[in-house]
């Protein structure tokens, strides 16, 4: 399978990439590691006339602490994020989930910014940044703006990013003292999650729960969070995991199966976040 004819442009800075986007408008698509976009292009589900490669923009590759947050450059590869000492210590949920994406080869190419901007509800990292209440920074012709993760994911493959904007940074509140849990279920190890659950644990606030593949966009399990706040045990709260969701219904996994799976995985992730080891594992 070969992508449709395209014109490849490589940007070496954010300014240069913004200029290329302004020049080509909606005909252009940004290419980071390419591990979400290229498969779609090979299937001709996407056929951008111009591909702007931002994968080599060095100014977007970093992980550093800035006060209460860890700032992650959008072109940081999953492998680098997963093995980064600062990320592992200060935002361990995000660092762990980066190591759960795809397989080693995918993690050598794929980037956190590319994964988030793709807006795939079956991707793992959106659930993690949702649970962490991260802030996403986008740059456009009029400068930079901050978008809370909760407002970023708008629907199926749709985000709050404008066609002339570039996601440049992910700002994750430091959470070295908070427990966390991540559970996902796949048919094969490297597959997209049938369902996944990311939990950032309780102290000092209530646990936050993000869901993978339980609707058209990555979402928070708000019913679980409300139940916990009202004093429910993790097991009781997890029973609410599928409330308000609209999981996909397909031959490999029915919507009903996904709803059940969400409750099971949420219970396990909550237990891990609380420092326990889930029963049966």
């Amino acid at each position: 399978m070969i992508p449709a004819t395209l014109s490849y442009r490589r940007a070496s800075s954010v300014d240069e990439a913004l200029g290329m986007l302004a020049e080509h408008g909606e005909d252009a698509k940004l290419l980071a590691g390419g591990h979400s976009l290229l498969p779609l292009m090979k299937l001709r589900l996407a056929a951008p006339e111009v591909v702007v490669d931002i994968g080599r923009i060095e100014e977007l590759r970093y992980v550093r602490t800035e006060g209460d947050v860890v700032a992650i450059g959008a072109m940081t590869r999953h492998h680098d994020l997963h093995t980064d000492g600062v990320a592992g210590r200060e935002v361990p949920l995000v660092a762990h989930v980066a190591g759960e994406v795809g397989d080693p080869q995918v993690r050598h190419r794929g980037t956190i910014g590319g994964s988030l901007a793709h807006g795939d509800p079956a991707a793992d990292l959106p659930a993690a940044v949702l649970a962490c209440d991260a802030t996403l920074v986008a740059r456009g012709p009029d400068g930079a703006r901050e978008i809370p993760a909760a407002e970023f994911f708008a629907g199926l493959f749709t985000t709050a990013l404008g066609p002339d904007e570039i996601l440049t940074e992910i700002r994750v509140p430091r959470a070295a003292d908070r427990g966390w849990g991540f559970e996902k279920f796949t048919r094969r190890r490297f597959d997209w999650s049938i369902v996944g659950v990311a939990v950032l644990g309780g102290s000092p606030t209530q646990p936050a729960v993000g869901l993978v593949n339980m609707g058209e966009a990555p979402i928070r399990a708000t019913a679980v969070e409300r139940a916990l706040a009202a004093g429910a045990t993790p097991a009781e709260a997890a029973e609410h995991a599928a409330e308000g969701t609209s999981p996909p219904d397909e031959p490999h996994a029915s919507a009903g199966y996904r709803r059940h799976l969400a409750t099971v995985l949420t219970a396990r992730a909550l237990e891990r976040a609380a420092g326990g080891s889930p029963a049966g594992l």
Partner: protein
Amino acid sequence: MRVTIEVNGRRTEEEVEDRTLLVHHLRDTLGLTATNIGCDTTSCGACTVLVDGESVKSCTVLAAQADGAAVTTVEGLAEGETLHPVQQAFQDHHGLQCGFCTPGMIMAAVSLLEANPRPTREDVRTGLEGNLCRCTGYHNIVDAVVAASGQEVPR
């Protein structure tokens, strides 16, 4: 566009269509046909090569993205008649059945051992999760990678 890639230590410079995938560039432009195309959907790992020393699936990389990089395919591992330790271990431990997954499996193993020179059997299985063997011949492949790391393989 014109892409310049160091392939197996040799500088190559070729004019390719912008949409050319790295695996097609290697096989069709440069004639290096050891790298196989299996699933063509970033799943099976048969097309795994090293880009700047790290394993990637070359069916999901544009040749243009590898412009300026160093690429290693399985053809580039042996030193003359002497096989690379991973290749030799695959032969010694019969780490293949039909052989289709082997070039990608070997390149993934080389990348794995670069990052983790003394992996456990579990490390090897996890580290090769991006490579499928449809003969299900994983046991001997794990033996081969453990042996290539210089560790004893239990009999």
